[in-house]
């Protein structure tokens, strides 16, 4: 059916000739609703406890070197060998060195256009996905990942275990605040993903099980900066 015909029917049913400008959505006029935690420490505490409630693990680290060491220990402890990660330039600010030398990490790099299929195969075979979250959401323990040229979807999706780095200054109070930040950035990315803990289902006799399609484990290294 043509768009004009489809839309004309909607307008006619609503009793007008054609779509008219709408008044402001009521959401804009309603006052903020909950009293969010006010201090950074409260935000961090709430984020960590909410994520733990849905089965995520949080490791707090205070420096770049502690982050690197923590990540390497984590990878060894899981017995995972193959990693897949966001583009390396994303990690520059953390100054990793040993990690790149000692672990087998496949990173997607811009300009790798022709190799999308091979990247996908590596991501599908990887044990661990290594990512960086753009925002944390304290009220629900969620992390926001903005997909982009250096930030593939597969990293947070295909491996059984997903490890994310989140800096404490990027934790916001709630989803409304996170969506405000997203909206203020202008054109949204092709995909903005809020991830709240590991993949879950209760489809078999209401019995909760993790990792039916997405990662069974979500681990966050929370870097206090």
């Amino acid at each position, binding site marked *: 059916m043509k768009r004009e015909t489809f839309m004309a029917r909607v307008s006619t049913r609503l009793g007008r000739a054609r779509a008219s400008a709408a008044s402001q959505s009521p959401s804009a006029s309603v006052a903020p609703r909950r009293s969010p935690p006010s201090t950074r420490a409260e935000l961090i505490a709430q984020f960590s406890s909410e994520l733990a409630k849905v089965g995520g693990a949080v490791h707090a680290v205070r420096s770049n070197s502690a982050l690197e060491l923590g990540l390497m220990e984590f990878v060894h402890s899981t017995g995972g060998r193959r990693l897949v990660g966001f583009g390396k330039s994303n990690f520059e600010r953390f100054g990793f060195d040993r990690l790149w030398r000692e672990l087998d990490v496949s990173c997607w790099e811009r300009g790798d256009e022709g190799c999308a299929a091979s990247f996908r195969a590596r991501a599908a075979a990887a044990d661990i996905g290594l990512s960086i979250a753009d925002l944390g959401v304290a009220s629900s323990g969620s992390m926001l990942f903005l997909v982009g040229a250096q930030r593939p979807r597969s990293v947070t999706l295909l491996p059984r275990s997903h490890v994310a780095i989140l800096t404490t200054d990027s934790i916001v109070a709630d989803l409304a605040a996170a969506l405000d930040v997203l909206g203020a950035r202008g054109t949204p990315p092709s*995909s903005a993903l809020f991830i709240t803990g590991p*993949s879950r289902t209760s489809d*078999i006799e209401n019995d909760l099980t993790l990792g039916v399609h997405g990662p069974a484990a979500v681990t966050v290294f929370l870097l206090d900066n």
Partner: protein
Amino acid sequence: MHSTDLDFAERADLALENQFLRKAVRFTVDRLRNGKAAGSAALGDFESWRERGRAIRAHTIANLDRYLEQFCDNLERAGGHVHFAADAAEASEICVRIAKDRQAKLAVKSKSMVSEEIELNRHFEAAGIEALETDLGEWIVQLAHEAPAHIILPCIHKSRGEIRALFERHAGAELAEDTATLAGYARKTLRQRFLEADIGISGCNFAIADTGSITMFTNEGNGRLVTTLPRTHIALMGMERIVPSFADLAVMAELLPRSATGQKLTTYLNVISGPRRANEADGPDELHVVIVDNGRSNQLGDPDFQAILHCIRCGACLNVCPVYRQIGGHAYGSVYPGPIGAVLSPLFQPEQELATELADASSLCGACHEACPVKIPIHDMLVKLRERNARPGRKSRTERLMMELSASVLSSPAAFARAGRVARLLQRWTIFDGSRMTFLARRIPVVKNWLGTRRLPPPPKRAFRDLWPDLEREVKS
């Protein structure tokens, strides 16, 4: 097991005889309802949130033409394609054409109620394209050749043993019965199919007019896989599933998961704005959004029913409904079960006889209205539907005669008293509580249905109105 050759009463009888189903339905709806209570309490001031949700949905639907136009413009700007389907047949046709043009062999699907509504799988199969459900519950239901029994948890009617048997037949090997093994089998098997698939098909919880985005609230991750791995993504969207902006999404995102399962947020909330962009490693090359009318626009401008388009498909009304609790989803014989289904089904398929009787499957207690996160007066709509069903030509002659007779008896106190006396005496002399003259009792309309499961109350020696003069004296003294 859409037993559409049976009528509603027969399907309900089947459900009532299935003890496993009844126990499973009760357990599930209690779990979800308790989850909702906890989740909404944690949010605080849930009534104000409901009011915000209602206001947003009412505003959006009242301006649906404008928001749909805006959404389409923005989605096209982001590189997406928009298609418009007047009815179920056209919606399926569009999807099949997209798939055929790409020589697709396999389409992987995440949960989409609209795809069930338009019977997409049947059309794909007819076109020689495999349509594979990947939500664990939907896959189980597909393997069993059945229909979903609940909006949120499609396979609550299947026992662990039945699921194992289905998987063993599929695997051609023995499997253990624990949840981890069964879910692990699904992961391993379906992961391979995701990687092979040509088309990914998803639903859309809310479109966002302001940005041209579609959003999906999911828990398992299959919704992300179908929108990440195949080259082509088709999203099916009911024309009413839209909100103006991110600020509105923020409100709906607090209401939908809490009302469905009690979660503060689902594991994944994916806000998709167009297909994969230059230099991105993954994601679909093409995004097609199919906007489906299929009876929805008929409700616009109807003061009694426009609000049904506010529905966000959370399933909360199923979980509180005393009728759904007894009979589960299949008895409704429709894609949308429960109170919401009893309203949606006849509105979307006015030509189908099946749907009209669903309005009677309600005690009109109003629990659905109280549970609804956007305050849809579902029980009022059920009354209006009954009114429609009682219009000339829609009920049998006998029923109409009986109703006319009752009307004349009930509208005169004297006639009512006389009729009561006669009926009391007749009952006393003949069938009494239904245990005497059973050959006769089984032939009396209404009475015979009653006697199927219980006795009649025995007629009292004296009616209340005869007792009243004495009682009145007692009360006054």
